[in-house]
């Protein structure tokens, strides 16, 4: 037995040493095990916080638990393409929370609305319906109610990303300007938040970080923009598989979702989010993502039946197709989404009641950046 322990220890020691630093970075950096504590602090909103996890994606659990804590009246929900709506854009007395990236499919939407307790005083939902949710040619993301209620940190990430931690250390040493930590008045949890000041604010909206203030990203020769487009064009992005028809199940799910909202007297203002004009024009021409152009017609009848608004914002080159205001092919900046919000307010009396359009217009006019409107 002693020989076994001795040999095992000698064998494993170098690996333990190798893993010690990543383990420390993960635990100290907030990547593992403190999520409930972070949720509590963000819900209290006494201090600016950012949650940006690099190696985990607990958004389903995180956002749902934040809804339960924040008890919003005005809720933004949808994929990542709604994350730029922030509380500064609404009147102070509107309890707003951005639950973007909580649902990854129409099934998820249904789980959320059915599970949400009656004591959550949501009166209005701004809903961003990602077009790929309705692609019959794409397998929907697996959806389980349990993901809203349970979250287990995955400690194996320490091992699987250990090499990456060392690569980052070397890269940060060789390019000192690269990491762009958040300002000192913001508490950053998670390695992405600490390194790049990217993460979820207390109101659930997403900040792309200090580096994106000037709108360098979004130009067509930007690496992130280009690589997203390439994957999309080749049908290789997990979200943007080719497809020509609308998923009947997804439409049924939407109907069920709206029925529950209607029963609970929740107003719904929904929109199909835009693409950058470069991407949109390409997809229109090549035709392999033709389902995108059929989503509005498939959904409009059911929205009308419940008296809800649905807007097709997929393309509007003049208003929000401007490529430089995009982070990548499908994600617009805060500035772009403010324009969208103002447009929605002008077409929806329900949403207009939550906003001061004069104030928003002034902010927009004074904004010099392609990206940010409100300072951090």
């Amino acid at each position, binding site marked *: 037995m002693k020989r076994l322990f001795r040999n095992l220890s000698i064998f494993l020691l170098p690996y333990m040493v190798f893993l010690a630093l990543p383990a420390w970075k993960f635990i100290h950096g907030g990547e593992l095990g403190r999520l409930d504590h972070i949720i509590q602090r963000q819900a209290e909103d006494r201090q600016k916080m950012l949650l940006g996890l690099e190696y985990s994606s607990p958004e389903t659990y995180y956002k749902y638990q934040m809804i339960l804590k924040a008890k919003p009246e005005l809720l933004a929900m949808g994929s990542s393409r709604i994350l730029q709506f922030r509380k500064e854009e609404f009147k102070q007395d509107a309890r707003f929370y951005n639950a973007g990236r909580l649902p990854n499919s129409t099934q998820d939407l249904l789980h959320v609305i059915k599970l949400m307790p009656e004591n959550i005083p949501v009166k209005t939902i701004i809903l961003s319906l990602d077009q790929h949710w309705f692609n019959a040619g794409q*397998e929907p993301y697996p959806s389980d109610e349990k993901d809203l209620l349970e979250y287990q940190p*995955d*400690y194996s990430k320490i091992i*699987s990303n*250990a*090499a990456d931690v060392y690569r980052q250390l070397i890269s940060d040493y060789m390019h000192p300007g690269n990491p762009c930590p958040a300002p000192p008045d913001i508490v950053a949890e998670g390695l992405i938040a600490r390194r790049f000041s990217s993460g979820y604010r207390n109101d659930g909206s997403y900040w792309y970080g200090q580096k994106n203030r000037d709108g360098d990203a979004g130009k067509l020769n930007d690496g992130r923009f280009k690589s997203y487009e390439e*994957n999309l064009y*080749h049908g*290789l992005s997990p979200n943007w598989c*080719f497809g020509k028809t609308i998923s009947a199940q997804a439409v049924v799910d939407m109907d069920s979702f709206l029925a529950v909202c209607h029963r609970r007297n929740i107003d719904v203002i929904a929109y199909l989010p835009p693409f950058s004009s470069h991407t949109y024009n390409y997809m229109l021409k090549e035709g392999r993502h033709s389902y995108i152009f059929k989503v509005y017609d498939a959904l409009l009848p059911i929205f009308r039946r419940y008296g809800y608004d649905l807007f097709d914002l997929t393309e509007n080159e003049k208003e929000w197709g401007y490529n430089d205001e995009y982070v990548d092919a499908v994600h617009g900046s805060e500035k772009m989404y403010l324009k969208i919000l103002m447009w929605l307010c002008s077409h929806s009396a329900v949403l207009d009641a939550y906003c001061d359009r004069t104030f928003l217009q002034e902010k927009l006019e004074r904004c010099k950046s392609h990206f940010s409107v409100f300072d951090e």
Partner: protein
Amino acid sequence: MLFNSLEFLLFFPAVTFTYYALPHKYRWALLLLASCVFYMFFIPRYIFILIFTIAVDYCAGLLIEKAVQPAKKKALLVLSICANVGILFFFKYFNFFNQDIRALAHFAGWNYTLQSLVIILPVGLSFHTLQAMSYTIEVYRGNQKAEKHLGIYALYVMYYPQLVAGPIERPQNMLHQFHKKHEFNYSNVANGLKLMLLGFFKKLVIADRLADYVDFVYKGPAHYHGLAILLAVVFFAFQIYCDFSGYSDIAIGASLVMGIRLMQNFDRPFISKSVTEFWRRWHISLYTWFNDYVFVPLVISLRNAGKIAVYVGLLITFFLAGLWHGAGWTFIIFGLLHGFALMYEFSTRKIRQRLSSSRIYDAASIIFTFGFACFSWIFFRASSFRQALVVIRSLFSRGQDSQDVIHYNFGLQQIAISTFAVAFLLALEYFQKNKGFISALNSLSRRKQWIICNLMFASIILLGIFAKKEFIYFQF
């Protein structure tokens, strides 16, 4: 509980340490408790299925041995087999047959209202059912004395290293080992850990890496052509081999650490020169089970038909083997393809024996056998017969997408890693020859052993995929 999980990393040393700390007379209880915990990590209430089959087969074994009249022995055997097969049929095959009958009824214009059941297949059901049946059959044949200790018998069925995906053991090999006292043996522990290391290397570095590409292509095979599909087909061959043999290595290694030896389940199947040889090297425990309990009895009962008996035996055996893998026509086709291949080889064995003295013929045979296995696995992997046809059609079509999906989805780096890892594994298998991995490794100098083990462990740490993907054979 998955082998590739943090829970198992804690479970295994705790059980092993306690096993050696306990006096021998309590060890069976510890292993049985550990096996229950291991099994209940999946769906806890399904333990009652195991309890039921254990109770039925334990009693059947005792009564068969006690019975004097052959007719009574046979009746008890049939009862035991029906109980086991009945449970397997209910959980695994009911919906499959129900759907087909409904389709037939619809075609014939009959009124058929029986609905499909919403049930989850208990993990490992196909495996422990065969293992339990082999016990009662061996007792009936007089090759095995009935086990009087209920706990030991229960452990034979539920032994956690091989409970979920084999190897499918025989009572002659297992039961006496549970009675025997196993002292702590450094060699066994070291060899067992080395084998587990090999298993984790195969699973985490090779199988789960290849799975990403294979899963992506099989989600929409109509979009891809030629090389992209060919890569998916070949990758799947290595994925399923590394996944399943990796599981077997971990199971055999974990058991060896406690001094209990399980049977070998794989023996370098990709050097097979024929499909017949392939089945002597691939999933050996399944093949020998079907050979001993289906093929041989069938051939004996039909012996008056001469060669026809062999052909019929092969067809039925591999039909059942295909069906055992899954309740679906694709699995049946998979089985039948191998059945027909074996029939062909049986009928041409004399010609092939004459040719096999040529090295070129041997090399061509290896390539052809590998190609055949890959082709049959298209049906195994596809979600439906239609999808399998799409894959086959796309394999022979041309398109620009091939390079795109390789470059953008998988990347040349991933291909390089996968290729290197597979090459490393094949090199290991080549150098081990027919000695087995452990014997071959132990025949090297300590330095070389440390280098190889460190190469594998470092690969796991740096290149392992830790996304907790289930082993493929868990679905069976």
